[in-house]
């Protein structure tokens, strides 16, 4: 049997390769932005040294939600719209697990919208990645709540009727929002930085990732992909800093303090240029699991004691 210090030493020595987090071969379309997100989270797991058996990727239904199948961790590919409450149940029962949620714009902002609002309020320690490609992919091209006005799809052949919903302003508008960021699939380096910051934040870390769907809305983000000036890079010592290489390409940069929620809401309202970075972070918001878990070790004895005490209240003695 190993001693405690030997175990600790072993843990310290533990190094995993990227391959150890790679599950099945992704079956997303060629050029799908989900591949970039997958690469970012696999790198995150490796660099943060997450034990695969202690890590759970939870998803709903849609192209985004296939991600858990491509990880070699625990995964929970659930039902449409319900990834968040499932993840909450996991986290409340087992705070020792690292819990990620992969959800899409249909899954999170449409069928699961009620859960999204309340998940923000619960502020459980989850890393939530919204794969937002502005379209339903798995069901073959229907308008989603984030489709820009006029998007032509199979259910809106003459163009969509409503203005797009902004997941960032919605999230920033809910009580207890504690971490809101935006990334894009076509800048992998900042995507990785942002996802890492999200993981390290203790609370409900919401990252909207603009993600290309070459199959159904191939030109959706083209103007931004090809014009770095139309990207607004948020930098701050409490946020993220761009590498020299990125600084050269993305020159449209602004200092933004993630503690400033009013400014965060203004930035969130901008669709063009697209802001990238951490909009808001507040580590002081309490986590629901900390509020609810008593820390009491639940043993047969504690159950027996409390049960007998309750029985005493209602007992009619002979």
């Amino acid at each position: 049997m190993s001693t405690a210090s030997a175990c600790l030493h072993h843990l310290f020595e533990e190094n995993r390769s990227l391959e150890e987090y790679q599950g099945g071969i992704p079956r997303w379309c060629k050029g799908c932005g989900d591949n970039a997100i997958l690469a970012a989270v696999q790198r995150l797991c490796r660099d943060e040294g997450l034990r695969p058996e202690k890590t759970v990727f939870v998803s709903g239904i849609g192209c985004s939600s296939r991600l858990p199948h491509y990880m070699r961790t625990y995964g929970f590919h659930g039902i449409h719209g319900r990834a968040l409450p499932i993840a909450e149940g996991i986290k409340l029962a087992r705070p020792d697990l690292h819990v990620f949620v992969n959800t899409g714009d249909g899954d999170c902002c449409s069928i699961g919208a009620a859960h999204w609002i309340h998940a923000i309020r619960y502020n459980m320690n989850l890393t939530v990645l919204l794969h937002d490609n502005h379209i339903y992919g798995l069901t073959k091209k229907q308008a989603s709540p984030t489709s820009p006005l006029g998007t032509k799809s199979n259910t809106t052949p003459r163009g969509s009727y409503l203005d797009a919903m902004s997941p960032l302003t919605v999230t920033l508008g809910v009580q207890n929002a504690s971490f809101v960021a935006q990334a894009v699939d076509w800048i992998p380096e900042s995507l990785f930085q942002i996802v890492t910051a999200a993981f390290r934040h203790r609370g409900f870390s919401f990252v909207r990732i603009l993600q290309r769907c070459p199959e159904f809305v191939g030109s959706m983000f083209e103007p931004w992909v090809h014009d770095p000036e139309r990207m607004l890079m948020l930098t701050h010592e409490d946020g993220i800093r761009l590498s020299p290489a990125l600084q050269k390409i993305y020159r449209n940069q602004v200092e933004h303090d993630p503690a400033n929620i009013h400014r965060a809401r203004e930035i969130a309202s901008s669709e063009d240029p697209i802001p990238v970075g951490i909009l808001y972070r507040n580590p002081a918001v309490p986590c629901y699991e900390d509020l609810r878990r008593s820390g009491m070790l639940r043993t047969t004895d504690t159950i027996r004691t409390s049960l007998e005490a309750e029985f005493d209240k209602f007992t009619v003695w002979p």
Partner: protein
Amino acid sequence: MNAAVETMDVRTTPKQVATLSEAVIEIMSDSGEGAQKCGQSFGSIAARMGNGVWTVEIIPAEIQPPARSIAGASGNRIRIGSKRITNGGDEADLAVAFNEQVLLGRVNAGELKPGCIVLLESMWGASADPKIALQYRETLDRLLGEGYRVHEVPMENECRRLVSDPRKGKNMFVLGMLCNLYSLDMDLARDQIAFIFGKKAEKVIKSNVALLEAGHAWAEHNLDFGFRVPAVRATEPQLVINGNTAIALGVLASGMDICAMYPITPATSASHYLSDVFERAGGIVHQAEDEIAACAFAIGASYTGKVAVTITSGPGYSLKQEGIGLAVMAEIPLVVVNVQRGGPSTGQPTKAEQSDLLTTMFGSHGDAPKVVMATSSIEDCFYSMITARRIAETFNMVVVVLSDASLATAQQPFPRPRFSEDWVAPPIDQNPVPEGAKPYDWDPITGLSRRFVPGQPNGMHTLTGLAHDRASRVAYDGETNEQGMHARSLKLAALQKMLMPPKVFGAEEGDLLVVGWGSTKGAIEESVERLRAEGHAVSALHLQFLQPMPPGIKEILQRFGQVITVEGNWSDRPDDPLIDESNRRYSALAMLLRSRYLVDVDCWTEVRGRPINPGSICNELRRRLAREEFRR
């Protein structure tokens, strides 16, 4: 107790104390006047004296219905007996009403026996409002005309001598009257008051004891009748709780850690109680944003190792169906409690019905086999939760426990359970999974597999609601799809082989067998007892497991000339002009028995929102037994 009273001069005739084997008493008031507390206390005192007791709440649908309204009756029905009491019984023998309008509601519903004794608050007759005085007078005349034995009682005036706000103390005055009329032990009554007001000041207890004693003295001086329902003190400690509290205590006892719920009548009080006590034992009640989330949350919690529970009623159950299907498909154990109420849609939220059996068994799209149990008594509510947790965990299945509104608020004493370590869920397994083992390594005979939970090294896999193979890989091929369906279905058969054949109540064979499930057990068995005493060859069979059904049922059904189910759900009436054998909709259990056992099973059902009473069942069975084809 009565000896000293003979000297009192108010009453002109000596008090006649009759001995009864049982009695049904109703107490009703406007909401907030405390009739429920009075009724429950009366039941508790009788229970302590050793009487069989069953109390049922009379609940208005609104939180604050208008005062003095027919639909606003709030109160209790208490049935006490010399022997064990298993249901609310037939019409009431005695009714206490705080105003004549709430009484009318019960009269119109046919809940009072012809000639029922009525103790009626008399103050309304002298009301300054001529409309109220007239209503009172008219009602009184009607009741007297219909043969009710009405005694006008100046409850409020009597209470005013002792307290400044008689509206608040009247219920304890009434409790005192009832203790006198039913010869209950006043020391136990004083104890009861000390218990219910235990958290309040000594002054409050004193004032309520004074009201109790005043009520007792008033009845002693003014009413020349009384009853005694002899009882033998229990030799073992008894618990007196309602069905929902029993469910909550069962959750605690089963070792489940997490209950996720959303408020819904009549299930919520189970979660209220659990919220109060669960956390002291390290458990958590999570009030989710909706029913769907509550189910998904419980599934997420269960997935990580320990079975979780979600508690709801019909409409909530409908919303949970998709989540339940996920748990079935992914073989995540889960306990779901459905405290049924009147449906469909919003239906009758506070009233009892047994209409969710088929949706529970067959609900959720696709083939989604799950275990369905029904609770048939308060005691059963407690133990069912422990059983449900163990089955869920052993078989990696969803177990649905059906209760209903009539058990939810009914109280019945039962022997205090003796704690067993076997009740409690084992700790979460975090051992490494053997190399090469698969998360769905379905056993070819039983369909069982050992699930892997997060934290177990080597167990990593992605659980999915999609069709999957033994390694939990998404599989669209026909062969694998059938393998999964096969395994999930086999688990029910494996459970069925472990169940005991149900026991027949009455003789093992005869002319007529009455089959039931859930809360109707007490009423059905009581009616069978009565009919057997009349010489009829009638027996009863009650099913705790509806899916899978235990072995041996067909053999039992075949030993009887006729089989009929008695249930609280809809069935078409055979004498309606358009109804015939080709279109008659049978009740839920009748349909299941007919299809499974190819036996001709008839049904008699009621959906009147009240618990089915033994008298109605007897009447119906007598009618059938009188028919030609029943005579041998």
